[in-house]
């Protein structure tokens, strides 16, 4: 019978496809005493062969889709799988102790994992994860349980999962994955951001998706309304099919605006830039009409690496982006690690409140050996384009001054050693912490620009953890309190002849843009797929009218009142 479940509409679009449940099975390994040693050894050897075939398949697939570099990990896995020390130990345990294969493997694997986890070298510590991964794969074959593996998907599906980690989403194949729905998450969780980047519809935070949706069921995913339709009727399928076509036509219409500037109906110009996570996102940003890069999140360069990227490696990445944008503005944010983002090779203390702890600039100022090479790489790259450097999580002017002092020191040293550095590099700060927004008039005298990070600004202003669904109702971009903070920052920058951008989710929100335009925001930086649609909207708006709307919004009492006002 037809029914639907509701979640948060995290990424636009509609998909009709079979459900693919991406759920980790529980691999329960018990200790059994076996009688037929040879049979158990054969089971183990056969499971090894199946695992080998699977890993080879994955290696070739990844090699084809993502290149040799990404396929290397599977080579390493295959080598570990065939490690004679490991396989002999398992066989001996089956033979001598009459252990069952799964249990023998578990014992041997645990020993190696323990050994690697306690090593001093961070690279070797990471290998423990490889051993665990292979053990899981091998155990699943011994037990005959199907493992969830997004990279094995080979038909059009809608992925159904508890949650999707960044590495899960990275493995999703755009050709086959038409959308996804999860139990947990919100509009700003990684899975949601990834869906918008991949331009596939997503409904997150349904609470019950994995419970209600069966593997192989045909479902309709509506990323506009946040609904997932289960067991839809023929008529519904036809209706949604039409809506998919309609949406595609609209998208074709927006595509015509790729090379146009963003100008309002009354001739006011603003800049629509794109957020990117790596140089490989650049092409996509340009194809979607970005007038600049409003936020290059450098942390992904660090998170994806096996060790600290060298100054030269960083330089190459930054240079690529600057060159690629051909003189258009590129705002590069220095390392924003901590909170929910960790580096595998960097030891960090466990904190009670990681979002309130040593993250972003706080970490960089503590660990100058991370910070200085990045600044040098940025300075060296500055010669290749229009660079602006952005420091994240600034709470006090002292922090900004410390950053600037280190920056100037590195700059002087480079120039003294004959390196070409651009003359006009702007340095700005993220406004994410209420203290900085409130004191923006003083900051504006010393910084070159502001970039408002709304996700964090809202989280810190409302004191509501954005990872915690129970308080997700407090994520209120339209709360007048937030709008007033945004206004303070914009006004402060303009009073000093500086500019303000916004790189949080809010900048790409269709309903927020009229207000932001009215408040005088200079630069809107969003995920690439939002740019053209937003540009088509802005072209129809009159800035003077939006100023009136913004003034009204500032005097509303609740977020609901503001939303009602905008919708009107």
């Amino acid at each position, binding site marked *: 019978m037809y029914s639907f479940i509701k979640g948060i509409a995290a990424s636009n679009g509609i998909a009709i496809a079979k459900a693919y449940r991406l759920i980790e099975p529980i691999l329960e390994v018990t200790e059994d005493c076996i009688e037929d040693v040879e049979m158990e050894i054969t089971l183990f050897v056969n499971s090894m062969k199946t695992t080998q075939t699977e890993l080879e398949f994955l290696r070739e697939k990844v090699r084809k889709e993502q290149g040799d570099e990404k396929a*290397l990990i599977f080579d*390493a896995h295959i*080598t570990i799988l065939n*490690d004679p*020390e490991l396989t002999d130990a398992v066989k001996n345990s089956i033979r001598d102790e009459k252990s069952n294969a799964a249990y023998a493997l578990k014992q041997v694997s645990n020993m190696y994992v323990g050994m*690697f986890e306690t090593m001093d070298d961070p*690279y070797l510590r990471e*290998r423990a994860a490889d051993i665990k991964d292979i053990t899981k794969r091998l155990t699943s074959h011994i037990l005959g349980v199907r493992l969830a593996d997004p990279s094995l998907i080979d038909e059009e599906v809608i992925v159904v999962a508890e949650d999707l980690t960044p590495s899960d989403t990275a493995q999703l194949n755009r050709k086959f994955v038409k959308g996804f729905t999860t139990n947990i998450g919100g509009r700003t969780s990684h899975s949601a951001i990834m869906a918008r980047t991949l331009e596939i519809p997503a409904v997150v935070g349904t609470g019950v998706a994995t419970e209600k949706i069966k593997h192989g069921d045909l479902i309709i995913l509506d990323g506009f309304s946040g609904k997932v339709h289960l067991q839809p009727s023929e008529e519904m399928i036809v209706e949604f099919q039409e809506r998919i076509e309609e949406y595609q036509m609209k998208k074709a219409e927006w595509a015509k605006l790729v090379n146009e500037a963003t100008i309002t109906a009354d001739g006011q110009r603003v800049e629509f830039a794109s957020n990117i996570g790596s140089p490989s996102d650049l092409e996509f940003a340009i194809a979607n009409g970005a007038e600049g890069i409003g936020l290059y999140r450098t942390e992904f360069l660090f998170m994806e690496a*096996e060790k600290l990227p060298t100054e030269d490696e960083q330089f190459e990445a930054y240079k690529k982006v600057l060159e690629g944008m051909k003189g258009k503005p590129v705002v590069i944010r220095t390392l924003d690690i901590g909170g929910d983002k960790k580096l595998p090779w960097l030891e960090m203390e466990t904190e009670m409140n990681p979002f309130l702890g040593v993250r972003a600039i706080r970490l960089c100022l503590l660990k100058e050996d991370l910070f200085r090479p990045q600044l040098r790489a940025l300075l060296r790259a500055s010669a290749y384009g229009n660079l602006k450097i952005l420091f994240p999580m600034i709470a006090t002017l002292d922090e900004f001054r410390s950053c600037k002092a280190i920056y100037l020191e590195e700059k002087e040293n480079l120039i003294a050693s004959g390196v070409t550095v651009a003359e006009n590099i702007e340095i700005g700060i993220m406004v994410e912490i209420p203290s900085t927004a409130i004191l923006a008039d003083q900051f504006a005298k010393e910084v070159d620009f502001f970039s408002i990070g709304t996700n964090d600004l809202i989280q810190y202003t409302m004191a509501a953890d954005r990872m915690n669904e129970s308080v997700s109702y407090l994520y209120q971009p339209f709360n007048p309190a937030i709008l007033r903070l945004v206004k303070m920052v914009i006004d402060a920058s303009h009073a000093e002849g500086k500019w303000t951008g916004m790189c949080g989710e809010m900048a790409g929100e269709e309903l927020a843009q009229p207000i932001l335009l009215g408040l005088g925001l200079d630069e809107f930086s969003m995920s690439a797929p939002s740019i053209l649609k937003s540009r088509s909207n802005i072209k129809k708006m009159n800035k003077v009218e939006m100023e009136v709307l913004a003034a009204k919004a500032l005097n509303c009492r609740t977020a609901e009142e503001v939303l009602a006002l905008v919708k009107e």
Partner: protein
Amino acid sequence: MVQKEFHIVAETGIHARPATLLVQAASKFQSEIKLAYKGKEVNLKSIMAVLTLGAGKGADVTITVNGADEEAAMEGIVTTMTKEGLI
């Protein structure tokens, strides 16, 4: 039996990808192949044993090959080590 000593010059030592390739190269041969460093000897066909040996930059290691294809094996190992910049 063939035995040879090597001085490791690679920045990261016998590590990561070079280690994997070295083990893969060794595994192609029938002979028993041992890698010794600081008095500890491990099976060169075992990636985990090789990694736990911790032979870093500047390490002096000894490789001993014993078996029917020992000459070819040593040759293959030297080729891989040179190609991967280990020695």
